[in-house]
């Protein structure tokens, strides 16, 4: 995230702290998709991910004037989401990965989409989340480290391991 983006976020937080709800809409537009896809990458079902997302943004509102003091709103939202996740789930959720649409919609009956879905499902969540943030959301390892509270080196090595596995999995189901 550039210095300009950070300044923009800080201006929005100041407006929100002053009670301007439209500023929350802009913060949502800038950060909600990354947070949503991260939650899905952690095996959280879509409806629950949406509930957690709502709780995260309302936590910002509940800070009132103190919202203006938040340095990194993305990091703040991720920290709240992590707390909400651990409060909801004694064990990490497991189940069908809802990150990619089911065959009947979106990537309808696309064997390539199904192969990617299976390959992502086979990854440990700690690796999968880094792949999603890097490949689809375009974050750097430094940004991923900051969002997930891990070092950039850890983010980078998790990504390398994930790519090794994906290369093997996708190489075996060659549709590309």
């Amino acid at each position, binding site marked *: 995230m550039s210095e300009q983006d950070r300044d923009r976020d800080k201006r929005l937080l100041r407006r929100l702290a002053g009670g301007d709800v439209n500023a929350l809409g802009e913060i949502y537009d800038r950060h909600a998709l990354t947070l949503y*896809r991260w939650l899905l990458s952690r095996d959280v079902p879509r409806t629950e991910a949406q509930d957690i997302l709502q709780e995260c943004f309302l936590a910002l509102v509940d800070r*009132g004037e103190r919202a203006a003091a938040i340095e990194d709103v993305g990091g703040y939202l991720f920290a709240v989401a992590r707390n909400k996740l651990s409060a909801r789930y004694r064990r990490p959720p497991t189940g069908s990965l809802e990150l*990619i649409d089911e065959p009947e919609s979106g*990537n309808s009956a696309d064997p390539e989409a199904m192969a990617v879905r299976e390959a992502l499902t086979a990854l440990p969540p700690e690796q999968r989340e880094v792949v999603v943030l890097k490949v689809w959301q375009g974050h750097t390892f430094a940004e991923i480290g900051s969002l997930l509270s891990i070092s950039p080196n850890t983010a980078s090595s998790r990504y390398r391991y994930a790519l090794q596995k994906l290369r093997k999995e996708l190489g075996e189901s060659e549709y590309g």
Partner: protein
Amino acid sequence: MDDQQVEDRLRRIALAELPGELRWRIIAAARRRLQMRRGNGTSLRRDT
């Protein structure tokens, strides 16, 4: 297949998008909270 090819294959797949009504739902809830807070502030000032 090299890393770049793996990344390219991944990027071709569309991930889930946010449902449109979620933004509206969150803004509406935030507006209610802000109004409630203002209301509480007013009644507190009246009490003192």
